[in-house]
């Protein structure tokens, strides 16, 4: 594979060959003129005159070979790196500052992304809802067997409904080669996986027969359990295992990465075998979690309207009189059910780190402005020898881009470290921590954040118009830049959560190096 260095070397080699070619042309013309009788120095002059603007020709030749903007960008980037090498303290401070900002933002994004934005691991996940009674007894909506059976039979809003027994009473003993193993067994309805749109990795799904009361017991094993306890051997399907002293036939194995809709642990799924023939009083004390898949053209609001009469009807039958006024019908998207009360917290967290990123931008903009003041003469000279305004702006933005990309790269490392720390610190508290990883989406976010930051903090020095009087070296503080700086800081301060102590701390941390740098 070609390394970037080899590529650069080759580019440089090519460029010098172009010059060589033009030189050889000049030399041959000169020789030819000299042979025709002109004195040597006159021949040289004539050859040069005939040739015209050699630099321009070289530029035109180069333009044939390289994409212009890329070439300009590389040239500016090289220039920027050279410039930053001259003031390494500033560059290092800026890069570290950006790294902290981008790293924190990326890490938090990595945490909230699966919660807020990413698809749930089910096909057409937006159709999935959690439905049930909501009352003072539980934080989440629940159902009772008697009501659920009525709802399932009479509802019109959903493609299908399914149910599972709530998690708490789910511990069971699996006998694995004489040693009992404590695992999580969850009882689900036969259509549970089908409603979610999930199929077993191997073996078969539950059938309606499995779900009949007193049917021969069968089970689906989770992928991790199958791996660790049965060595991932497909021959386990159809064999019997002992669960809570009962011989249970293994019907199949759940797919890798399968998630329960309420995010509970589940090592073994077994049919819940609801019994409609039991008396209503018995069934109205059997608790369930119920989920449903909306019809494609039905919204959650419409579903609620359609379900309300049924809900009122079953409330009369199954809910004790003194509680009837306190229960209501809840239908909410599966995502809302899953992230529950951390939704607001997630948005707050994301807002806070974005505010932090803004503050980082303000600080780096400050650093660059201080540098720009010192460089004003250089820029004025550039303008004087013909660099267009757009070209100057582009060069300054490229400098910011170089800083931001370096900072972003380091920031990815920071994000990685922070994510690891977060996962270790909060293994239980953070939902879906297992799905939190430094993946392509997070890296893309980091890249986008760096580039956006570069545009933001690069704009400040770039917008300053290089004036002719700057050639004289007068140092007039631009009113525009003070305004811009204030805007950035104000924007940072406007975000909710900035009052948050952590952010305040970060702000102080970020401003500290600036103070020590004596700016």
């Amino acid at each position: 594979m070609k390394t970037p260095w080899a590529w650069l070397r080759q580019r440089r080699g090519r460029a010098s060959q172009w010059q060589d070619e033009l030189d050889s042309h000049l030399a041959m013309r000169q020789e030819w003129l000299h042979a025709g009788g002109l004195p040597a120095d006159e021949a040289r002059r004539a050859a040069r005159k005939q040739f015209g603007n050699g630099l321009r020709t070289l530029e035109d030749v180069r333009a044939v070979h390289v994409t212009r903007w890329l070439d300009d960008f590389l040239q500016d980037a090289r220039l920027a790196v050279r410039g930053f090498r001259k003031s390494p303290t500033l560059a290092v401070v800026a890069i570290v500052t950006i790294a902290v900002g981008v790293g924190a933002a990326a890490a938090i994004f990595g945490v909230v992304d699966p919660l807020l934005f990413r698809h749930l691991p089910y096909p057409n996940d937006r159709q999935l809802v959690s439905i049930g009674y909501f009352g003072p007894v539980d934080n989440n909506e629940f159902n009772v067997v008697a009501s659920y059976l009525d709802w399932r039979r009479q509802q019109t809003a959903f493609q299908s409904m399914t149910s599972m027994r709530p998690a708490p009473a789910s511990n069971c003993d699996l006998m694995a080669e004489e040693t009992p193993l404590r695992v999580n067994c969850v009882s689900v309805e036969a259509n549970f996986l089908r409603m979610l749109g999930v199929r077993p990795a191997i073996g078969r799904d539950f059938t309606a027969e499995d779900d009949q009361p007193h049917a021969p017991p069968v089970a689906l094993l989770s992928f991790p359990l199958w791996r660790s306890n049965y060595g991932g051997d497909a021959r386990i399907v159809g064999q019997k295992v002992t669960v809570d002293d009962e011989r249970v036939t293994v019907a199949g194995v759940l797919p890798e990465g399968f998630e329960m809709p309420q995010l509970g642990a589940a090592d073994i799924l077994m049919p819940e075998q609801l019994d409609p023939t039991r008396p209503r009083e018995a069934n109205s004390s059997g608790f369930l979690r119920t989920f449903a898949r909306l019809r494609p053209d039905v919204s959650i609001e419409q579903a609620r309207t359609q379900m309300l009469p049924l809900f009122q009807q079953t409330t009369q039958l199954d809910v004790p009189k003194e509680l009837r006024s306190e229960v209501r019908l809840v239908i909410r998207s599966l995502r809302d059910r899953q992230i529950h009360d951390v939704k607001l917290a997630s948005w707050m967290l994301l807002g806070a780190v974005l505010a932090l990123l803004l503050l980082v931008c303000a600080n780096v903009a400050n650093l660059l402005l201080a540098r720009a003041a010192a460089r004003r003469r250089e820029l004025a000279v550039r303008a004087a020898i013909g660099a267009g305004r757009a070209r100057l702006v582009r060069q300054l933005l490229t400098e910011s881009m170089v800083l931001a990309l370096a900072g972003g790269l380091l920031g990815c490392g920071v994000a990685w470290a922070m994510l690891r720390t977060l996962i270790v610190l909060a293994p239980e508290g953070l939902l879906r921590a297992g799905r939190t990883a430094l993946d392509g989406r997070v890296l893309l976010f980091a890249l986008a954040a760096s580039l956006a930051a570069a545009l933001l903090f690069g704009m400040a020095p770039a917008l300053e118009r290089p004036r002719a009087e700057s050639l004289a070296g007068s140092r007039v503080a631009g009113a525009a830049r003070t305004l811009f700086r204030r805007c950035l800081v104000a924007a940072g301060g406007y975000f909710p959560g900035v009052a948050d102590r952590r952010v305040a701390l970060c702000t102080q941390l970020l401003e500290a190096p600036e103070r020590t740098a004596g700016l």
Partner: protein
Amino acid sequence: MRTDRLQGALEMLILKSLEHKDNHGFGITLHVQTVSEGLLRVEEGSLYPALHRMEKEKLIAGDWRTTENGRRARFYALTASGRKRLAESENNWTSVAKGVRKLLRFA
């Protein structure tokens, strides 16, 4: 006449100059000038970008060789597609020239 004024003319002149003999840039300018008895002149400023563009389009291929005078120079040679392009543009040019001549004679 400045040859870069007519689009495609420069390309055709370069291709034609290389038809029988590989040559370097300076050789091409010399060839065009002498053969046209000074009527046509190829500007260096247009020649080299054109050569590089044509090389990129694989109409010609360039490599470093030594001239009879012992000088290193970049020689260009026609490729198969260069030959094909030359035949096309010669045809094209002849008909354009014919048309222009007719138009000028009319009056």
